[in-house]
């Protein structure tokens, strides 16, 4: 039986543990330990040694991210911790599960993160549609404040933290960490140039760390178990467990907490239950809309950051979108590129104008009006909208499923153009 520290308190369909029950289950013990017997630097070191990597999609080592914040009496103040709870990556619903199922766990992770970097204010940036999560988080913040886990001089440690819930109003780009800071400051969510990185100059120009929900939910368990034991939960180099999930025509769509590095085949066959009757597997987006397709030949890939990268994609959010043999890959690409075109913030030209062009070409091919030279045009776009040509990673992310679809499902594109129709309709 796998250990599942992040979801141990979570039962689907059941309300989250209220504070006393959460404490009884060992909750806030990590905060007690850290604030009474560890320095902020020791908390940071423990997280670095745990090999926790960011669960929002990019996989940046969390301890390293924190270490860029300046500390000491000379450090600019206030400092901020921002939780990226703007989960809007298509196919992804893991942070919702964690926030609805165990809001105190997230708060506990936030307290530890804020303590490590010396932040006195934390914002939870939550997408608008997650109303159940908002209610439960609000209640948890009140409970934690009343019990002295938040507020002034927590446990007499001299460390103080206020937490504010900031509910957003749509737009995928708000999940890009610097765009998120603009949104929090009350402006349009347009990504910022880096450097300076948020750790040096973030929210209102102050030192700021932006962490994903799942990332922070890991931190109490690192402090409770110690870095070594936490690392050992994993089947690979990256530490800990991961919330994986699957959607599409599989028998049991859902989300599961499993050792980091669980192979793709195991996710699909054991946990998702294989394909539904009458459907065959063709490919999968391993970590949301902005990751390259993987196919049959990649099924033995361990789902950790480096292995998925070596297989030619990215772990991303670790939430699989499964493509079956009765769904048109061209249509799926058109759907994905429609999403990216619509969600471009419009700041830089390649993204704002390139993505709608890509969508139009795909729509034409899908409708049987494609020309043979369109495939070359699409391939050009995958290069010209790639990393280095745009202000942020939005358009490069949009090109990942397209470039891999052109490779793995080329025959489908060609057939649409040749037969002047969609063979799946």
């Amino acid at each position: 039986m796998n250990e599942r520290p992040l979801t141990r308190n979570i039962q689907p369909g059941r309300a989250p543990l209220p504070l006393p029950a959460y404490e009884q289950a060992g909750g806030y013990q990590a905060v007690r330990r850290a604030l009474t017997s560890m320095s902020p630097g020791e908390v940071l070191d423990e997280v670095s040694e745990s090999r926790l990597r960011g669960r929002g999609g990019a996989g940046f080592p969390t301890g390293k991210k924190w270490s860029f914040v300046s500390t000491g009496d000379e450090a600019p103040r206030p400092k901020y911790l921002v939780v990226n709870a703007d989960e809007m990556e298509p196919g992804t619903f893991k942070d919702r599960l964690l926030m609805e199922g165990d809001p105190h766990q997230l708060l506990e992770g936030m307290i530890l993160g804020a303590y490590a970097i010396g932040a006195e204010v934390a914002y939870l940036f939550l997408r608008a549609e997650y109303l159940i999560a908002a209610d439960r988080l609000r209640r948890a913040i009140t409970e934690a404040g009343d019990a002295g886990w938040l507020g002034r001089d927590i446990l007499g440690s001299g460390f103080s933290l206020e937490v504010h819930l900031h509910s957003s109003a749509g737009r995928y780009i708000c999940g890009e960490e610097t765009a998120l800071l603009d949104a929090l400051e009350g402006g349009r969510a347009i990504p910022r140039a880096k450097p300076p990185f948020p750790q040096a100059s973030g929210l209102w120009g102050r030192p700021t760390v932006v962490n994903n929900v799942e990332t922070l939910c890991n931190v109490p368990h690192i402090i409770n178990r110690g870095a070594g034991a936490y690392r050992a939960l994993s089947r690979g180099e990256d530490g800990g467990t991961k919330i994986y999930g699957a959607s599409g025509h599989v028998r049991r769509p859902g989300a599961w907490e499993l050792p980091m590095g669980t192979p793709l085949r195991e996710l699909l066959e054991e946990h998702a239950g294989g394909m539904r009757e009458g459907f065959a597997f063709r490919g999968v987006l391993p970590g949301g809309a902005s990751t390259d397709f993987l196919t049959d030949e990649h099924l033995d890939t361990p789902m950790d950051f480096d292995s998925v990268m070596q297989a030619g994609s990215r772990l991303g959010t670790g939430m699989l979108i499964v493509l079956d043999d009765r769904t048109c890959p061209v249509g799926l690409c058109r759907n994905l590129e429609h999403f990216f075109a619509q969600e471009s913030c419009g700041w830089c030209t390649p993204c704002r104008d390139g993505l709608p062009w890509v969508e139009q070409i795909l729509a034409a091919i899908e409708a049987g009006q494609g020309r043979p030279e369109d495939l070359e045009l699409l391939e050009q776009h995958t290069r010209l909208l790639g990393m280095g040509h745009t202000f942020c990673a939005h358009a490069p992310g949009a090109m990942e499923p397209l470039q891999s679809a052109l490779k793995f499902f080329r025959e489908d594109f060609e057939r649409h153009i040749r037969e002047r129709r969609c063979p799946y309709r």
Partner: protein
Amino acid sequence: MLSEVERDEIEAQFEHYEERRAASVEALKIVQRQRGWVPDEELAEVARLLEMSAAELDGVATFYSLVFRRPVGRHVILICDSASCWVMGYECVRAQLEQHLGIGLGETTADQRFTLLPSVCLGACDHAPALMIDETLHADVEPGQLERILSGYE
């Protein structure tokens, strides 16, 4: 004109942030909760409270998909059109909805009962296709159930 309640609620947000303008989205949502949408006059008043120009606040309001600068129906339907829902039958659900309501995406029924809007992934991919009506998520939606689901909203 902003009501006293709206004004108080907006001003209560200010202490959460270093600058008043950071409350812009919440302020617009407060107005929208009362009125269903954000009219020009109230937008200008909110802008003054936030120490922004009305044009700048409108730039923020129109950036976000869930701030409505035009009147909407009594109930807003957000239909998820992202990848997992598309794979699982979004197009059938959408077609059935459009036919039943007699409107397309972005439109409001003549009786002002429903506005139909597309939405990016609602985070209910394991129960696709999904849609949200006002504050309620409806998942595993089958086209045949839509009439019954909609009948719950007057």
